């Protein structure tokens, strides 16, 4: 039953998975392709330094000097972080929220839950199977991004740390999966895709804004730590490969809590949408 559920889930999501995969890979390839042109432009360092702090925060470049070489040109890592890896969890996070919000709600809306749950499958079995499958899909998309950037770096002959790039993707995936789990919880609460997507999306935007604005709020700067985005520092990860254990704890904690709560809600509630 579980294999059939996985097969059907993948089959039904095939086009959206391919669309997101294609979009992300094109974006990654484009970034690699334009790097040689941008790296030769003088004054990019000044431009980066002139950006408002909040804007640099959004791109994951808290300290501009870490993104530039001694001559003030973009390093490959600095450019990747500013133009791609800083945004990667946001972009894939949108898909994660969309897919999480519909994980059981879409079937409830279609009336398909009545058929699926009349088969020998536990409610939690259905939810966990779907969630693990979708986390697998997010993992594959993240791996695709890693592979594209790695091949791009080799083609450009840029000496990027492979492990650093891998760790950056791994931490980004942790953040993306925690957003997916958050949306999954709302899917089980509402059993309405649009409502779950709205609440999960709004909550995520709020957490993102907190991450961007909190450092500028003086005494309220601690609020930044309330946002899961605060535990993802793409530039630092690309430069050093040092994974903050706290980020793993936070993302794992959010994922386990949200999926655990979603399972409990789904197991106990009436299946009426």
């Amino acid at each position, binding site marked *: 039953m579980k294999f*059939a559920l996985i097969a*059907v889930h993948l089959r*039904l999501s095939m086009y959206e998975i391919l669309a997101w995969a294609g979009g992300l890979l094109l974006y990654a390839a484009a970034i690699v392709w334009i790097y040689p042109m941008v790296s030769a432009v003088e004054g990019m360092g000044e431009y980066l330094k002139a950006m408002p702090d909040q804007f640099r925060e959004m791109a994951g470049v808290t300290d501009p000097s870490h993104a530039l070489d001694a001559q003030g040109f973009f390093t490959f890592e600095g450019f990747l972080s500013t133009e791609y890896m800083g945004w990667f969890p946001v972009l894939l996070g949108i898909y994660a929220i969309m897919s999480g919000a519909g994980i059981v709600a879409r079937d409830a809306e*279609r*009336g398909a839950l009545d058929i699926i*749950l009349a*088969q020998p*499958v536990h409610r939690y079995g259905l939810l966990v199977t779907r969630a693990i499958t979708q986390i697998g899909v997010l993992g594959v998309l993240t791996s695709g991004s890693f592979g594209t950037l790695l091949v791009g770096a080799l083609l450009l002959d840029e000496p990027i740390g492979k492990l650093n790039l891998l760790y950056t993707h791994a931490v980004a995936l942790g953040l993306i999966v925690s957003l997916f789990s958050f949306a999954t919880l709302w899917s089980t609460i509402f059993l309405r895709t649009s409502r779950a997507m709205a609440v999960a999306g709004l909550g995520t935007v709020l957490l993102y804004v907190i991450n961007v604005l909190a450092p500028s709020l003086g005494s309220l700067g601690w609020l930044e730590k309330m946002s899961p985005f605060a535990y993802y520092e793409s530039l630092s990860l690309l430069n050093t490969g040092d994974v903050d254990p706290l980020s793993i704890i936070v993302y794992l904690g959010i994922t386990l809590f949200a999926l655990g709560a979603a399972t409990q809600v789904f197991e106990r509630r*009436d299946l*009426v949408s």
Partner: protein
Amino acid sequence: MTNSPTAIQTFGLSKAFGDVLALRDLDLEVFRGEVFGFLGPNGSGKTTTIRLLLDFIRPTSGRAEILGLDTRKHAFELRRQVGNLPGDFLIYPQLTINAFFRLCSGGRPEGMRRARDLADRFGLDLKRKVGTLSTGNRQKAGLVQALMHDPELVILDEPTSGLDPLVKEEFYGLVDEEKGRGKTIFLSSHVLPEIEQICDRVGIVREGSLIAVEEVEGLKRHKRRRMAITFSGPAEVSVHEWQKAEGVEVLARAGNRVELSIPEGSVAGVLNILAGLPVEDLVFPEASLEKAFMSLYAGTTEEESHDGFPGELS
């Protein structure tokens, strides 16, 4: 599975949605090997009962057992033993019927074999996508998935909705076969002739309460039908004369037209009276189950529901 003689048993089963009590204190017993019809108008609590039995919704109070097992505690085990066709059956339109059956078979080859046999019987093309099916064909696919596991108990919510008469007959034959194999069928329906044809017993639910459980034969004995007669000329038949046929009541008389309420078994008496009269037209449809039961169990008289000749519950 236990050796319980009952397929379904409920104990004070109630369900409220907010302030609305959709089902109240349902005590119902369905025996193994019988075909049980669950009847009632829309919103009466039929689907709520079915969803409670299948553990899709949870009771506000009371409990239910299927095949001797508690429906909440043993929901997973029971899904192996119970086939279900939901009332508004929908499934992924992108899937082919074959892929849909494979999903429902849980990888068990015997399930797929039976599904293919049943699909052949209903004339379903397994290669077609669910989204391209007509209502009737989609209903057939739903019936196949309900029966493909060879379940001990089959719960069907409006199973013949959208089926053409030939397929309905095929379905009735299938129900007979399943019954012959000792399986239990629990079906909700609006349609009295269908219930009469295939069910052993019926339960009537109205406004969330079970108002009657009766054998179909008993139901037929109680059932009154209406007859509207139009005469081509003057036909002076007094109320007293009509009542010579046992239990016949005159509901209305206007000009050359008369409407009678006739109990089962008195039709011949009425026809005897009519034999010497100039009858121009005679309408004698199947009785409305709702009206028959309302007059029997809810105290509503035939006159109060004197508004045409409906064939189905509303």
